[in-house]
């Protein structure tokens, strides 16, 4: 029976066509655009989650499955939930605490949007020129053995990047405590 198992595993499991990764990529971009565009905060948060999922899938498609799963676990499991909780905890502000005259004035928002769009366009233009006109990027070829086995990653974490790992641990602890303190309802004495 062993030959049978051999035969089955010998089947071309991973000869997926090259363009498949465009599916999660496109999904991701669409979801991101929706997240930015939508009025309803919850909807945009959900779209953000979707785009995160798609990004994770994209990572997996690119061969970094560990990173992809971590992306799913962290962003979908934690960050998205955080954002949703934050949205639910901060209902739309009824009282406007600011008394600057521009705020009520709709033009300001328009100006804001236009200026922001302009800057974004500028940045994108810069990036695209950088991407499409740099010879190195054009010359780059995918390396055949681009795989990130978990064991290797673990080994790396505990050897080359041990110090950053510890630093991250400390930072996460500090962030946890700090976030808890910040969000805690302070007693009015």
């Amino acid at each position, binding site marked *: 029976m062993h030959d049978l198992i051999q035969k089955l595993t010998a089947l071309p499991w991973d000869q997926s066509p090259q363009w498949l990764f465009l599916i999660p990529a496109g999904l991701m971009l669409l979801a991101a655009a929706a997240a930015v565009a939508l009025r309803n905060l919850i909807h945009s948060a959900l779209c953000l989650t979707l785009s995160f999922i798609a990004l994770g899938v994209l990572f997996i498609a690119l061969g970094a499955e560990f990173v992809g799963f971590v992306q799913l676990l962290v962003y979908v499991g934690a960050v998205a939930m955080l954002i949703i909780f934050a949205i639910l905890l901060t209902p739309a502000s009824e009282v406007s605490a600011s008394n600057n005259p521009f705020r009520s004035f709709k033009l300001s928002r328009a100006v*804001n949007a236009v*200026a*922001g769009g302009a*800057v*974004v366009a*500028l*940045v994108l*233009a*810069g*990036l695209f*020129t*950088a991407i499409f006109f*740099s010879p190195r990027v054009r010359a780059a070829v995918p390396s055949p053995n681009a795989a990130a086995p978990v064991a290797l990653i673990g080994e790396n974490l505990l050897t080359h990047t041990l110090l950053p790992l510890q630093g991250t641990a400390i930072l996460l602890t500090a962030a946890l405590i700090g976030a808890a303190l910040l969000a805690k309802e302070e007693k009015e004495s």
Partner: protein
Amino acid sequence: MNIFLLIALVPLLPFLAAGITALLKREQQGLSATLVIGSQVIAFAISLYLFFGILVMRWVYELLGRVSIALGSHATNTHLFAGDFFNFPWLTFGHDTLRLGLLLDPLSAGMAAMVSFVTLLIFIYSVGYMKEDRNFTRFFTFLSLFSGAMLGVVLSNSLLLTFICWELVGLASYLLIGFWFHKPEAAAAAKKAFLTTRVGDMGFLIGMFWLYKAAGTLLFYDNGAGCLEQAALATMAKTMVGGIALSNVIALLIFCGAAGKSGQFPLHVWLPDAMEGPTPVSALIHAATMVAAGVFLVARVFPIFTATGAHSVSLLVVACIGAFTALFAALIAVAQTDIKRILAYSTVSQLGFMMLALGVGSVGAAMLHLIAHAFFKALLFLGAGSVIHGVHEEQDIRNMGGLSRSMPLTFLTYSIGMLALAGFPVFFSGFWSKDAILHAAHSWPVSQIPFIMAAAAAFLTVFYMTRQMTYVFFGSYRGHAHPHESPNVMTIPLTILAAAAVLFSIPTTPAWPWFEDFLSNSGEHVTFHLAGLLEPGFLHIALLSTVIVACGIALGWFVYGRRPLSATEPDPLEAACTPLYKALANRLYVDEFYNATVVRALAAFGALSAWVDRWILQGAVKAATGLSFFISSLSDGMDRFLINFGFDSSCDALREYGGGIAGCERGRVQGYLRVIGIGAVVLLALIGWLLA
């Protein structure tokens, strides 16, 4: 085990016990008593071991000396085992270190054995006596503290350590006298005792400082460098201060402290009042051990007294004060009616005897009497406590009587103590030790007056003890309570002490005076020879004192014992000659005298200083305050109108010009973000241009 560790354990154990007991709860009476008494037992065992050890050492050395003589070497027998000491640095300032030390020599060994023994018995006794007291635990804490301090005094090899423990002893006695602080008399008595002894201790302190300055050390023995050793003594004897040798001055100053503790004449007033404390305390502190500390101190630093010969000025003073105190206190005791007060005054007078012995240069006799006295006076006090306990806290002897039937054991032991104190011939330690003192005083070449005073005091002693006995134990009961015998835990120590009082007469007989010789640490190796009894000088004294005792008892019986007394009728003596009796009953008005002079002067001075404080110093302070107020207001004005103005204006200018620049700072996050974006693009372009 290091012997000095052993020595150090003797005082440290009670201290430790005190420390632990202090932390116990009120309810844990059994535990506290066990702790304290247990530690005391161990201390007693150790000190007994040391005592016999040193005894054996001496005999061994003596034997060696004889052997060497027999072998024909010229080694004399003078190199007896003179004790051993152990010094350790305590604190270092600058270049010189202050060292403390422990000393083990016949004197301290005997004293330590006696102290721990009596203390132990009294501890056991107080278990029964203080049973009902709700501060039982505290009481035992204090007792243990006292015991530790006392043993420290005894065993220290440094005047400084002695002083420290000395003050601790004072503190302990203060706490114990004022143990029933809710009684105003007790509180007052405690304060009185503390202050009075302070007066003496001030002298002690000054003397100590002076000694340190003169001898450069406070260690007694330090291989020739100690302050009781030849070099230091010689220098002190040579230097003169206003006609007197420095050694004598220092000796007298130290004697002030001794007199304060031992209740010698000018400073004796606190001792009778101290009887307000619980009876075990009276027995422990004011009969047996603490008051003996003064005598012990003088004996300890005796070389300083004798630095300028055996008849130095200091010794003269000591002898005179001792003799006077002995007579004076005995006189007062005759007219007291409080059972414990009588004993207190008798204590004072006995201490006078000891001081007299010291003054006439016989340390051995003094220490002998000290120890003997410790036994029988403790016995008497405990007996008195038993009596008081038996008649329900009644202390006036006029309301007692006929107790010999209701408490026979107490009566028996008490009478033994009385006879010992009176110096009843042959069988009682008091007889021999007192005779030794009388003998020493008699053979004092300087003068016979102290001897005569001492003899009179001895007579009076017998008289008032007889008086007390008749009042308390004979006749018919005049009180209202129902007298009963005390529990065993109280009577057993009485019995033991009684036995001690009797048995102690064996080593005190001049027939076999090794103990006296041992205490005075002198060189004669003594063997048993009956000839000591028949030695003429002593024989006369013995006969004389026998006569004295006989007369005293006879007179006392004649005055008080013939017919039963009633509580109301005045004392026969009072009937005989009222003013003298009144004077004596009022303790010769010493307290009144002190109130009239010392206390009033102090009060006046206090008032004066209060007035000075209120009117002069405070005025000065007020003036200073006003001045500083004025100055500060001035500077404040300058601040406000000169400095601030310029500063404010400059600040305004700054704000004005800064405002223009702050305009583009609008607190809009996204504005900043935009700028960052543009900056990033510029950076990108720059990098591209550089790379291309």
